[in-house]
């Protein structure tokens, strides 16, 4: 074996060990709740806990609304920037990166000051308002991922020519976005959607400071008070995230293939 290949394997094995050993240790620990034997007791307790079910359901619903809001904002914006305002792309890319630079705690304190019950827009004055504010906040947090995913999808199609082809056939903007653009970037949108889902499911700061019954604060609460259940929850959350990533991979196989190939 060549020495280059040997060292490549060494690096791979060390990397894999760094990743898998803590994971296996967590799995093993989560199975040790019953003294002396391995069991799924911790998983049964977690999955049977009504608070797990309600907080998880809350976060799933919040994720779905976040995805819808993100798609409604990002797809038309990214499309319009590609079509008519390409000179604005660097500015928009910078803006979409801001949520990675500005900590969530800063954003949420801003929200609390701006939208408190005494403000002209009292989102925090009601449960529905606070839920809406949480979804808006999550859409902001997911913006870097959603925008990049959609923009990458748009790059694979000839946006301008397809738009003009649809226009000349009589289509208005709604038809163009709904029947031509969106179906051709659907896989990219789904990638962004699953990334958004993964972010929302585990998010703690915003949900906690806005006092929402989400999965993130529940995870933290369990982690602070129990021994084996947090490990089981970590594995469950990890499985959900990996499930989302796998779905992106599977769905990407069904992407419409480019028609632009030479004769």
């Amino acid at each position, binding site marked *: 074996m060549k020495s280059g290949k040997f060292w490549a394997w060494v690096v791979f094995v060390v990397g894999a060990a760094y990743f898998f050993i803590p994971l296996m240790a967590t799995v093993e620990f989560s199975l040790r709740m019953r003294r002396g034997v391995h069991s799924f007791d911790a998983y049964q307790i977690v999955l049977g806990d009504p608070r797990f079910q309600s907080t998880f359901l809350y976060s799933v619903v919040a994720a779905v609304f976040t995805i819808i809001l993100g798609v409604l904002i990002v797809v038309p914006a990214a499309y319009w920037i590609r079509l008519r305002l390409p000179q604005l792309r660097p500015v928009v890319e910078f803006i979409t990166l801001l949520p990675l630079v500005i900590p969530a705690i800063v954003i949420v304190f801003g929200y609390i000051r701006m939208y408190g019950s005494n403000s002209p827009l009292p989102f925090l004055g009601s449960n529905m308002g606070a839920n809406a504010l949480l979804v808006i906040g999550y859409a902001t947090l997911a913006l870097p991922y959603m925008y990049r995913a959609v923009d990458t999808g748009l790059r694979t*199609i*000839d946006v301008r*020519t*397809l738009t*003009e*082809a*649809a*226009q*000349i*056939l*009589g*289509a*208005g903007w709604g*038809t163009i976005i709904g*029947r*031509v653009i969106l*179906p*051709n970037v659907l896989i990219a949108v789904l990638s962004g959607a699953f990334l958004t889902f993964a972010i929302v499911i585990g998010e703690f700061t915003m949900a906690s400071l806005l006092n929402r019954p989400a999965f993130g604060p529940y995870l933290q609460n369990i982690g602070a008070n129990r021994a084996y259940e947090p490990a089981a929850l970590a594995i469950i959350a990890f499985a959900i995230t990996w499930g989302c990533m796998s779905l992106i991979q599977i769905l990407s196989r069904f992407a*419409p*293939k*480019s*028609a*632009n*190939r*030479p*004769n």
Partner: protein
Amino acid sequence: MAEPFLSIQHVRKSYGSNTVVQDFSLDVEPGEFVSFLGPSGCGKTTVLRMVAGFEEPSAGKIVVAGKDITRLKPNQRNVGMVFQAYALFPNLTVAQNIAFGLKVAGMSKADADKRVAEMLDMIKLPQMADRYPYQLSGGQQQRIALARAIAPKPKLLLLDEPLSALDAKVRVSLREEIRSIQKKLGITTIFVTHDQEEALSISDRIAVMYGGKAEQVATPFEIYNRPATKFVANFVGTLNVLEGKVTDAASGKVQVDTQEVSLKGKLNGSKSGDTLSLALRPEAISLGLQPGRDSSLSGEISEVHFLGSVIRVRVGIGGNTVSLDTFNSPATPPPAVGEKAEISFSSSDMLVLH
């Protein structure tokens, strides 16, 4: 004269201080096939895009069937267009692509299906209905794009270099197919191309464009044989340009190098002593003296290129070089470089470029 179907009136298009189309006017008769021919950047595609509604003219107006459409949006114009890059919707099958415009127009599914079948028969691809664009060759994709453009029965068909992305063989067969479909449907068509052979072979009229202006609008025969400007003469076909000096304007004598040719009746406005550019198509010149040719010049063969069925010969006449083609004959050896040669032509074929 009948009312023109499409009337482009004094149209101008500027981007800031850069004017890409200047005072362009053209009337197109119903059912006519007009080509915009010119080099890259001459403004031909910009005029087409203004007719389609993708660009708004800075001045002038565009009238279709008596209606001013200058400010209408592209989706309100009832115009069909075929793009260079095919522009088929990748997520839709061939049938769905063709039906797109019909559905947008609100046609019932049964009627749309019938029309799609008609279109697929017309382009001779009835078995392709369920295929996706990526499963088709370039030529097939462009035929589908043509069917999609025609399906909603547009008033006007615009073709934006539809053959440029195809290989030479497909290009020839598809251009003939486009022309035959256009004739069958009688649809008024504007065809943009930079390929003169394409334009000459399928157009009723050609607008040769240069620098944002129409240099000449005429039939292919006139464009080729009676170019109105030096640019048209040079751009369309191969042209031999000889520098000459008028020695006797009254009798039409012009000196080329040290030899004299007679161009009686062709020197309108020229005076003795004027310098002229004289142009001759290669096919108007014969090697050697030929009966029926009233003019000749002698020179020396400078290049010989054997091209199979024809032999391209270049003859130096003083400071000028003339290119001509002769048919290959197995019984006759090709001329040799350095040989003295006589070329003959009819003075009526000589063009005087101003």
